[in-house]
């Protein structure tokens, strides 16, 4: 069961929930589950980077998750 941490600015879309445990084998299933539970999050998740156990992915949809994965959602950053 991966633990997903919701950025504090997005807890307005989750009724104040800031961490959720989700059983998902990959990021796509995790994001789908999040959207089903918190529909208002959907638009935020369209442009999101995902940190899985410390590694930050711009394109994370098909990245696998471990049962104990620590997942953070954050704005995508590239640079100059």
């Amino acid at each position, binding site marked *: 069961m991966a633990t997903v941490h919701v950025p504090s600015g997005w807890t307005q879309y989750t009724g104040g929930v800031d961490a959720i445990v989700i059983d998902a084998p990959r990021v796509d299933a995790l994001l789908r589950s999040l959207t089903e539970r918190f529909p208002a999050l959907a638009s935020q998740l369209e442009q999101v980077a995902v940190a899985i*156990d410390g*590694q930050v992915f*711009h394109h994370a949809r098909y990245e696998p998750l471990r049962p104990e994965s620590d997942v*953070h959602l954050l704005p995508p950053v*590239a*640079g*100059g």
Partner: protein
Amino acid sequence: MSEFKYIGTRPVRHDGVDKVTGRAAYGADLNLPGMLHGAVLRSPHAHARIVSIDTSAAEAMAGVKAVITGRDIPPNSAKLVLGGEAALDLHDMGDNLLAHDKALYHGHPVAAVAATSADLAREAALKINVVYDTLPPVMTVDDAMAPGAPRLHDRFAQNVAHRMELKRGDVEKGFAAADVVVEREFRTPTVHQGYIEPHACVARYGQDGRATVWCSTQGPFVVREACAAILGMDAAHIKVIPSEIGGGFGGKIVVYLEPLAILLSRRTNRPVKIVMTRDEVFRASGPTSGSKVRAKFGAKRDGTLVAASVSLWYEAGAYRGSPAGAGAMCCLSPYTLPNFFIEAHDVVVNKPKVAAYRAPGSPMAMFATESALDEVARELDMDPIELRLKNAVAEGDPAPYGPKYGPIGLKQVLEAARAHPHWKAPLEAHQGRGVACGFWFNAGMNSSATITLNSDGSAAVVTGNPDIGGTRVAQALMVSEELGIPVERVRPSVADTDTAGHTDVTGGSRVCYATGNAVIQAARNVRSQLRARAAKIWNVDVEQVGWDAGRAIPLNGDAGKTALTVNELAAQMPQTGGPIIGHAAVSMPMAGPGFAAHICDLEVDMETGCSRVVRYTAVQDVGKAVHPSYVEGQMQGGVAQGIGWALNEEYVFNANGVMENAGFLDYRMPVASDLPMIDTVLIEVANPLHPYGVRGVGEVPIVPPLAAVANAMRAATGVRFTELPLSPPRVLQGLTERQSTVDSPQLTVSR
């Protein structure tokens, strides 16, 4: 002894001779037969409704071949596409190319002309009659957020386009438990990247409906995709050929001219060239945000930081999308704070839309936090490096934006700074010393590479990243390391979008890391093929062939076979299966962050307020320096830009929102004679995501100088300056007001 033979050496860069002899071709160097010249008519107002545009007089001029306006940019929805620090809005990108209903900054393009000469095109542009209904300009975040402020965009309810926040723990409890609380508000002006080469392009639209674009860009694939999306073309119908690039620093990721040149070429059936003047570069390409940042720290008497709050307001320019979010994520990243609250605001104003600029958003945010931290050290009477070390993050600590850090080198960096002779060197009269840290993420993203082995054993490596900081030679070094071919026998090339595999921008400190990894994988692919060729020659299974020091070697102690060199194997390619070409394409996670600590000595003329940097040392965790000279060059270049930001640079606007210093004479950037030799110390904490440990180096070094310089100014003068630049008039005013500024009781609380 190094584990590497080539990595870490300092060969001459392959593109060096072309660049120092002037043979290298930059964006404005290309001319084609029958080529027309384009010019852009720009708004003389910072904020105005466009009532009407009459192009008839311009179109009637002999030699004028086409005139286009916003009506020629296909309307796009407000679809967001990912890019840079924020999602890009296709509607805004199109409107920034040619204004539709409103001019949103002085210099906003309104129309473009193609004519038989550049002078004629400019003259014709001035014949276009535009009727404006002027509106009051909104030039600062305070103006933009004031009650009743004019709104830039009718489709949004306010000028604050976006807000984000980050938090941990209970910040109020944290401050309540602090022995010392320091709070300050800081401001930085709009500044430009200041690349030497202006934006330039040539576009040729063929009767087959296909366009070729030659341009100076950090990202040929970005140009192709942006042009295709904005103009409604198939990406396969646009070929982008990048020129050599005379600097970009993030500012050459955006398209300003290319879609206009394509449209004008399509209209005229002739190639069209457009080159910005320096004035246009300042007024109408993307600078970085002016900012307001309020930073507050709480610390225990022993130096333990227990709470922080940071509020950021960044100017986005005319359209949403400032790097405020990145600033928020960076500003407290070096420290193990149990309690913090960070909020960031993206605010539209009547200035050119900001573009990325080296570690976008981080320098302004960390100017605030690293300056405030310097005040905390003063309140505690504590060495500022010791304060930072006491609170420094290490592997396993959580970043403020969530995930835990992997291997990072902040503590090693601070320890190296503390041990450096500079830190204890004596100062002279009117000199002060400052220190500050910096942080940047270092991007990953997508890259491709192709390596072709030649029959004489030399090799060519092709990627799609324009070479800004010595990436060609770094890629050649990686090929050398993997295949054992001397770096002089490897030819690295930057290819066009039809030739190279898709590769994301030269930016985000990503090329040596991500594209470098693609090069290494392509070289290993070549190596596998070489082993297979040796197996064929020896008539054994490939598993019985090893690789050592650039040679295929027989395994299992077969004494009857002699190792085969790359040269020998390459010479036999036709007999063993044909050409050997290695490909690789990678999608890389972010590299893992880089940290830096800088020490600055500043000397101040107390009569004039004029100051100069007399000594500067930059210490940085670089992961692994593939070519140390170019790593040092990146660090020195970042420092030079940061010092300019700290001491001199600013957009000066008049009351009508018109920039008054749009040239290098009045927009004062540091030149070599302004600066001392910048010492560099390279710390190498390997990044586990790269085969050699590379983590990206180009952006971190612009982050610390703003606060390092300001902290040195504080030490030299006794005055805490909270607004940049620290130009002589501002410093002189501060010295005059010294007493009231130094000990502002409402801002600093000691318990």
